[in-house]
């Protein structure tokens, strides 16, 4: 039975996960090839970074800028001459003259100066990344992690334990994409360096010329910083790749240290063996990612944009991708579970039960995996699971008490923001369709805020509040009549309310006898103020309550017994006030016929108002 169940799970999971796994492996392989290619080109010297003699691009560009800078030197001399003659002290002409002579000399040697700095960095980079080091990182991952474990996974009908297979799939996919992404960013960084340094060399004569005058000195400093950072980033990146490579070697020498630490009880022996083998590579992966982030700390212009891209676009692309896959998986799993449970519970017979279970399983997986409602339910279940985990952590005092409630409510608030612009009708329909999801709860939140929650959704809302998805206070401020569904009373909710607060509640409250009675009790002599703040609908509802209670005093008697017991004076005072509520409303219903508007007969003979 276990193997049958395992097979049943493995088939749809295999269909979904296998292509993703292949994609992950391909991505890692591609990233590795790209990094190897970029590092080889960088260190081979075939693409000279600073020498105009060896790189035609630099030769053309640098000659042009050098000539421009030389023209600038001549013009600078004229300018200094005029400045001295006209005594333009703000230009510090004497000091500028000295620098002009020095720079005029240096301009012709700028590739040499740049070469000193870049070569020093390249020497370090070559030391950290001797031939094969960069490629070994990716290849080890492909060989020891992917190819070593993928073989077993592809035999989907081997009757293995489903959990272990799914676990392996997910771990390998994560390693493939995270590792690939890190390697690609390293490659992009080195590739950018190969373009940025020649450009800086080409601009070097102009940058040196800018050093002469105080007004333009800042451009030289900017250029200088860029040159230093772009040169250095190669050495820093190489250093972290070097460390990652060494980390791999150390781990390969001592694999048992990692394998022994994995507990077998919780995840099963097969998954534990796999985790023991693969866990060490997580350390390498962490090294790679941290190294990448550290390298970005040295990020110059251009690399900064790459950093920003990695942080926003890259992150969101990865996140969106994984979220999409996650939603489908979550949806499918929840759908399978719910569908199976539903079918099994509805069918009583032996075979009928099994067939029903299978049908529910299949339909549930399809619905959960591929319909929006199913995916939303999956997403919600994930937050529910996270909530349960957080509750446990709260009990263990590992996270602040009460933080779980805000965690859930934040998730709903994010969904509410998405549906804020929708019309009330759409929100009501959406809240009904997505009743058990965060999306639906977000819609309920918007309806509460607008005061447009229909009575049909009140119990769904109080259920969500009781499960701490939605905050209690904003709901009770508008719908206090539903207080008893939230383990509180109307009296408690309205304890310190003013006439304004009573009047602000929605008209449904004024149809509710306990609420109207509580309002009368709280307002006492100020009933006139309350009634005058109510609109026509609310007054009408309150008067209906009065008429109903007058005809059938049972409910009012029970209210009197609960609130005033046998205190005759208080009972009478309350009844008096209740009568005054009706008197106030009736008085305010008065209206007068307006005087007839005179009609004017104009010359044409037509009547005009």
């Amino acid at each position: 039975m276990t193997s049958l169940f395992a097979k049943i799970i493995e088939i749809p999971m295999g269909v979904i996960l296998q292509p993703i796994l292949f994609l992950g492996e391909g991505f890692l392989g591609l990233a590795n090839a790209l990094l190897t290619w970029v590092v080889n080109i960088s260190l081979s010297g075939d693409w000279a970074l600073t020498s105009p003699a060896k790189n035609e691009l630099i030769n053309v560009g640098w000659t042009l800028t050098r000539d421009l800078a030389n023209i600038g030197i001549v013009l600078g001399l004229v300018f200094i001459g005029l400045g001295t003659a006209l005594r333009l002290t703000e230009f510090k002409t004497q000091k500028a003259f000295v620098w002009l002579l020095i720079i005029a000399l240096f301009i012709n040697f700028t590739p040499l100066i740049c070469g000193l700095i870049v070569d020093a960095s390249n020497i370090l980079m070559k030391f950290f990344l001797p031939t094969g080091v960069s490629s070994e990182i990716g290849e080890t991952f492909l060989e020891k992690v992917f190819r070593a474990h993928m073989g077993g996974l592809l035999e989907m009908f081997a009757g293995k334990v489903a959990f272990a297979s799914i676990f392996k799939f997910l771990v390998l996919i994560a390693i493939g994409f995270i590792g690939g992404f890190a390697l690609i960013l390293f490659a992009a960084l080195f590739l950018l360096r190969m373009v940025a340094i020649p450009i800086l060399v080409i601009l070097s004569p102009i940058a040196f010329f800018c050093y002469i005058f105080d007004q333009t000195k800042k451009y030289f400093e900017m250029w200088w910083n860029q040159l230093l950072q772009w040169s250095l980033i190669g050495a820093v990146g190489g250093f972290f790749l070097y460390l990652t490579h060494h980390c791999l070697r150390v781990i390969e020498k001592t694999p048992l240290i990692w394998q022994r630490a994995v507990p077998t009880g919780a995840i099963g022996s097969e998954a534990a063996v796999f985790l023991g083998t693969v866990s060490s590579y997580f350390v390498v992966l962490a090294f790679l990612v941290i190294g990448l982030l550290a390298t970005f700390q040295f990020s110059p212009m251009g690399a900064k944009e790459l950093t920003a891209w990695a942080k926003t676009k890259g992150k969101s692309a990865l996140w969106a991708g994984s979220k999409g896959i996650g939603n489908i998986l979550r949806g499918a799993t929840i759908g399978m579970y719910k569908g199976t449970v539903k079918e099994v519970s509805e069918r009583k017979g032996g075979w009928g039960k099994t067939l029903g279970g299978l049908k529910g399983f299949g339909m549930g997986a399809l619905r959960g995996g591929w319909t929006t409602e199913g995916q939303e339910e999956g997403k919600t279940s994930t937050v529910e699971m996270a909530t349960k985990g957080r509750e446990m952590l709260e009990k263990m005092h590992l996270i602040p008490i009460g933080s779980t409630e805000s965690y859930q409510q934040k998730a709903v608030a994010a969904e509410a923001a998405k549906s804020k612009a929708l019309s009330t009708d759409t929100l009501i329909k959406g809240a009904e369709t997505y009743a058990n999801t965060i999306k639906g709860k977000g819609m309920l939140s918007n309806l509460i805020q607008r005061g447009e929650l229909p009575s049909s959704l009140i119990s769904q809302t109080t259920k969500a509040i009781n499960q701490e998805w939605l905050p209690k206070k904003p709901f009770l401020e508008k719908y206090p009549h539903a207080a008893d569904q939230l383990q509180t009373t109307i009296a408690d909710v309205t304890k310190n309310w003013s006439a304004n607060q009573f009047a602000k509640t929605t008209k449904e409250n004024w149809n509710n006898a306990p609420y109207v009675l509580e309002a009368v009790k709280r307002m006492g002599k100020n009933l006139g103020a309350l009634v005058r703040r109510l609109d026509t609908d609310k007054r009408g509802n309150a008067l209906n309550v009065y008429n109903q209670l007058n005809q059938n005093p049972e409910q009012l008697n029970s209210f009197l017994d609960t609130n005033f017991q046998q205190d005759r004076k208080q009972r009478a005072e309350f009844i008096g006030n209740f009568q005054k509520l009706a008197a106030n409303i009736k008085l305010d219903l008065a209206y007068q016929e307006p005087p007839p508007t005179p009609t004017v007969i104009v010359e044409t003979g037509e009547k005009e108002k």
Partner: protein
Amino acid sequence: MTNNFEKQSIDYPDETIEIASEILKNFELEESPEELEKKFQLGKESNIVIIAEILRKYKEKNLSFPEFTASLQKQLNISQKKAEELATDLKNEVLSLARKSEEITAEETEKPEEPKSQDVYREPIE
């Protein structure tokens, strides 16, 4: 602007019913606690609700003063003299408080004339 087909609502100050209640008390028409509870258990309306209803009709249907008095006498089961005195008090102290919604709007929108400030650009004429 009020539509020709709309009826003009009449607004009373918040304390109107309390004033009416006080008038009832002066005429010894306010029920004791026992009477009030008894009336309620029998599903009868108290005198204040009856008064509010008559006041509404008086304004709404533009009843004449004798009609208003007769209404009070009949509904509250009191003598004609008492009814006349009660009607006079209600007319002077309660009905006089009523304002049509248009009047209120006009009052609210009318701004009090601001005192003219001294013209600083002119020298005082002596």
